[in-house]
């Protein structure tokens, strides 16, 4: 970065090798190699999966975005799967974000000191539960009461224009987009919570105290001092949660009902890119197998697009808040 040489520290003369330079260079190479390794691995995964999926891309072309997934008739349109993936992840983030931010604020700004640690530990513990356990719990415990709840909501909203389509045809078994969204919301809550908590903890207490000293209530202090300072961190946390939600496989495979389609009925069964791979890879061959690997490629691409979009959002909010403050 700096082009003109800074003043040499005492004890060093120009042209003489400073001690530790070799170690420095060695470290630099090591760090560079580690950094490049990630890119190389990513590139290899992308190349290999794309190559394996090529028969699908060349057979279906733009048909990969249709919603007709019918292996028996050799149609492999992933549109319904892409839709399902985005819908489940969207529902999960919508449900999880307010709860996560609430927990994080409670821990950093509201809860008394001695119960903060236990709460943090408990929430972190949620992240340690294997996803198949969440899936089985959702399937065996959550699905049945949800099925009757869905039915009740569906009956109650049957005459309201938009809601009647949204909540129509609830699944009798409780396996649905919504059930999958709820279970994934629980799974990503610890992730979003821990990131937003870390970000809230970096808000200078001087700013918070200043807000309180000006007569702000606790909520006004949070809105005026904590949120503006943490906006980019909150977006980043949400995006990491979203990425996790889109990649979730087994828990969704167990409770989504395995019915790839594009529909507004969020209480009905659907399917996602990741869960269809888990469900169908074992018996797939030929184009079917290529299509399932292709689903992985599509998911990879969507994840990259979303994380790039997230970066752009973070950069913009940072610039804006830097300009106004």
């Amino acid at each position, binding site marked *: 970065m700096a082009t003109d040489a800074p003043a040499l520290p005492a004890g060093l003369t120009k042209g003489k090798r400073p001690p530790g330079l070799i170690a420095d260079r060695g470290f630099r190479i090591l760090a560079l190699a580690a950094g490049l390794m990630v890119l190389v691995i990513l590139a290899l995964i992308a190349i290999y999966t794309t190559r394996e999926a090529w028969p699908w891309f060349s057979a279906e072309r733009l048909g990969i975005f249709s919603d007709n997934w019918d292996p028996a008739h050799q149609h492999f349109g992933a549109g319904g799967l892409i839709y399902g993936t985005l819908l489940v992840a969207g529902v999960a983030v919508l449900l999880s974000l307010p709860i996560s931010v609430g927990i994080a604020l409670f821990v950093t700004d509201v809860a008394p000191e001695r119960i903060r640690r236990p709460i943090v530990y408990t929430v972190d513990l949620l992240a340690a539960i294997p996803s198949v356990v969440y899936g089985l719990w959702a399937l065996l415990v959550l699905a049945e009461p949800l099925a009757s709840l869905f039915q009740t909501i569906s009956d109650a909203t049957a005459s309201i224009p938009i809601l009647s389509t949204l909540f129509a045809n609830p699944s009798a078994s409780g396996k649905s987009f919504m059930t999958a969204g709820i279970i994934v919301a629980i799974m990503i809550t610890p992730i979003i919570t821990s990131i937003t908590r870390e970000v809230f903890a970096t808000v200078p207490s001087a700013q918070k105290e200043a807000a309180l000293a000006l007569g702000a209530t606790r909520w006004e202090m949070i809105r005026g001092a904590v949120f503006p300072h943490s906006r980019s961190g909150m977006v980043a946390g949400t995006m990491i949660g979203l990425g996790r939600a889109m990649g979730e496989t087994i828990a969704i495979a167990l409770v989504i009902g395995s019915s790839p389609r594009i529909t507004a009925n969020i209480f009905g069964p659907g399917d996602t890119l990741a869960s269809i791979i888990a*469900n169908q890879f074992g018996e*797939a*061959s030929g184009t079917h197998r290529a299509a399932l690997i292709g689903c992985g490629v599509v998911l990879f691409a969507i994840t990259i697009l979303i994380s790039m979009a997230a970066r752009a959002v973070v950069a913009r909010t940072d610039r804006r808040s830097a300009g106004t403050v």
Partner: protein
Amino acid sequence: MKRITGYLRWLVPTALIVGLVPLGGAIASAVGAPAQGGSATLNGSGSTFQQPYNEAVTGAFKQKNPNVTINYSGGGSGKGRQDFSDQVVDFAGTDAPYSAADAANVKGGKYFYFPTVAGPITVSYNLSGVKKLQLSAETLAKIFQGDIKTWDDPAIKADNPGVKLPSTAITVAHRSDSSGTTQNFTGFLAAAAPTAWTLGTGSTVSWPADQQAGQGNPGVGQIVKSTDGAIGYVDFSDAKALKLKFASVKNKAGKFVAPTVKATTAAVEKAQVNADLTYNPLNAAGASAYPIASPTWILVYQNYSDAAKATALKNFLNYIYGNGQKVASQVDYAPLPKNLLDKAKAQVKQVGGTSSGSTSSAPAST
């Protein structure tokens, strides 16, 4: 003196143990090795349908051949065929033969299909008040497609004269994962009701969205068990384990036959067997044949670079075609009929695997 005995008390057992371990090993290898012609480990993967049978027959085989270890890891027929063609495994289980395109990609040279057992796929149902149910292929096709919505539909009534059917709504249960069971069930509907059945044949088909999906045979069975008015296709051993009621299905000869091990063997007996021992038992002729059965095969290479592996596999196959057929009905699989059994036994002799084999590509190993 006392101190010495104190030491001795520890020293003697220790010396005995230390001394006996290698001695025991020497005895084991001296006694075991010549008896079986070397130990071998065989790794296989694939069809989950044949997995319970493989476990049962491997356990029985192992008692006679303690030096041979057989690992079978399941994963599905598609995975088995892929692993076999990549030479990741020594043998693979599959419920369907390779497609022509995939067969060309199999590495490892010539290979064989060995049929091992067969199994009926039940049409299990749960309908209070109805103990006996008969269904023709056309009616089954319409039920699983969602054309027939209630149990008192005229088509079901026509199949069941004299049976009082309730107006309960039909809940269809199918597999959420792709499966050879789905492949064979839909294959039967396509063969026996070609005009009525429109969803096609495959390990997964595009089921109507208002049906219920269960994970694996037990998942489908559980939906049937817990829902009044439910119907689903479940393999025989899982359906028996869950104590489900089975419908009798109309076969090609026009008879309604209940799923049993015997009726399945009868179906396999009437099936057209190809030169490579692949066959299709679906919708078989014969008055006593149950028309919905899963065939299953073990894929074995002709040549193995390790002679011990080839010998072990040959012994294993011979065991399957001997006592292994008796094991089959104990675990609710149908043994092969005599005509197919004889062909399979003859094919076992073709498995070579000498280290100085005719194929020069494999390096000789000793």
